């Protein structure tokens, strides 16, 4: 018997399927894979641009890395603070957005308007607008004079923050935890404006929980508290990973270390050093992502 020539129907279909992703594949190779390779290459060499627009690379070994970590004035500090800030912000944003999603998912009067307001920060998320907003905010809460610090903002509105801090200290709350909470409250605004997309993801997740589960919980006599920890939280768990990844990436893109790399590149015209900074910070963030995701994934319950 002769072997059948050509492709089977299924294979033909799969070739067509490949056509669907072809544009992206070409783009990924040209713009991402090649660029990542080039960044690594730049970071290992000294780059000089020539008048015609081209550039020449000269092998410099690890000198850029050594310079960044040993001699550069601010890189190490900026890197550490950026990463510490991220580690502080990510759990805050995740839990805040979960909490808000649960609130917004309930039925109450004027829900449409409230939802529309909550997604406004996603719309107004550009550099120029943000800085002007910051100014407008201090103006709103008591004029220019009181804009000195975030705590004094609250003080201007008649709340004695120091009193509350003292109160909680007397209740023997650990100082570190107290600092964390105070910092979180003081930055409530940053947190709100950074959690728009996360709230959307969580609302969608909450909507996808079958209502029968709540019915069962109710019949079995579970309290609201128990229902949350035994039904809502496990069902939302897989989306916490999505949100954590999104938050980390978003937070990193806005962080100081990225800004430093940008400035080094286009203001100081030190391409090699800039590539080194980008690469080091990206690798660190990726490692954090992998660790955090692994940690959450172990505790995640998958319904299907």
């Amino acid at each position, binding site marked *: 018997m002769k072997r059948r020539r050509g492709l089977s129907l299924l294979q033909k279909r799969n070739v067509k399927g490949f*056509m669907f*992703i072809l544009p*992206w594949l070409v*783009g990924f190779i040209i*713009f991402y894979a090649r660029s990542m390779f080039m960044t690594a290459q730049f970071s290992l060499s000294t780059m000089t641009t020539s008048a015609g627009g081209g550039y020449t690379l000269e092998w410099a070994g690890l000198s850029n890395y050594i310079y960044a970590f040993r001699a550069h004035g601010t890189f190490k500090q900026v890197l550490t603070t950026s990463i510490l800030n991220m580690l502080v912000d990510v759990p805050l944003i995740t839990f805040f957005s979960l909490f808000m999603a649960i609130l917004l998912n309930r039925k109450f009067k004027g829900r449409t308007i409230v939802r529309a307001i909550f997604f406004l920060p996603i719309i107004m998320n550009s550099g120029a607008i943000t800085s*002007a907003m910051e100014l407008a905010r201090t103006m709103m809460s008591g004029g220019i004079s009181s804009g000195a610090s975030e705590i004094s903002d609250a003080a201007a509105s008649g709340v004695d923050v120091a009193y509350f801090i003292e109160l909680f200290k007397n209740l023997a709350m650990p100082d570190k935890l107290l600092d964390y909470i105070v910092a979180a409250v003081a930055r409530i605004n940053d947190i709100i404006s950074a959690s728009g997309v996360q709230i959307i993801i969580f609302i969608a997740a909450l909507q996808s929980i079958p209502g029968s589960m709540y019915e069962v919980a109710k019949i079995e006599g579970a309290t609201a508290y128990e229902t949350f920890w035994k039904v809502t939280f496990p069902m939302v768990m897989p989306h916490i990973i999505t949100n954590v*990844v999104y938050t980390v990436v978003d937070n990193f893109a806005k962080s100081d270390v*990225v800004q430093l790399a940008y400035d080094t590149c286009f203001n100081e015209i030190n391409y090699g050093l800039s590539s080194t900074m980008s690469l080091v910070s990206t690798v660190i963030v990726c490692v954090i992502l992998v660790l955090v995701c692994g940690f959450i994934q172990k505790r995640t319950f998958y319904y299907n």
Partner: protein
Amino acid sequence: MQKIKIDAQTRNSMSAMQRSVKKGILGLAQFVVIVGICYVIVAPILGILVSSFMSDGDAYNPMVYMIPTAPTLQKYKTVIARLNYFPTMGRDLLYTLSLMIIQVFICSMVGYGFARFNFPFKKLLFACVVVMIVIPTNTIMLPLYMTFKNFNPFGLATLIKGKSINLLGTPVPMYLMTFLGCGLRSGLYIYIFNQFFRGLPKEIEEAAFVDGAGVWYTYFRIMLMNAMPSVITVAVFSMVWQYNDTFYAKLFLISENIVISKKISSLTAVIANEDKILDTTIQQLYLDAGIILIMVPIVLIYVFLQRYFIEGVERSGIVG
């Protein structure tokens, strides 16, 4: 016997009362939290709106709060002239909307490809999509800058013109990247579409196949029509983010006459230079007017689409 009955009754009524009190307190707490957070979000926008109508005198009058004593449109007039508002906005909307349409088509195509077909290395390739989401653009900005500065695909430019082409300063790099599925946050959109198409029943396509529809016909006429919730989600996201994007606009040196949010960042300098207004407090009023002006179209579109958008988010594939 009697006593026990009464006890049970009082206990029941007590717990009912407790429950209603508890419910009332919870409702109040919920109300306070929601109103408080809405205030935090809306307050600065309100502040900007109010101060954009203030006259110079109002800005320095400590008695003026929320309601300007002498509201004026003069700030808007100046800013519209300086921004060259209507032509620039028209060009920007054209740029944003065209990119949005390309994003929706390319990303939905790729997402569909990943959701419904099998080909070698599919898992690995999809991992590349995730890499695209995770890797920040800043890591690859310099190579991108260099690539478009000396644009020379396969040596074609050298062959035709004798030297490489400098594409910086034009919107071409952005179109090129978006067309090849690597635009602003394309990875995220591909992911959303992929999740959505995976959730659609396979029977639709089988029926189309039996009726003799080709793969492309099925995709364009059937699958894309069914994917409306995620199409709207992606359309809104991509439009808003593209409109607000200054990173790529700065990196590719795209002209201020196309990207209006870039123009707004130099507005105070222009006002200082051309209108000789050097007082920073007054300059801020002009900036506020400018911000209101660039927010207007996007807010209008959002208000128009927000119902579909939120419904779409709930039904679309953001959730896997």
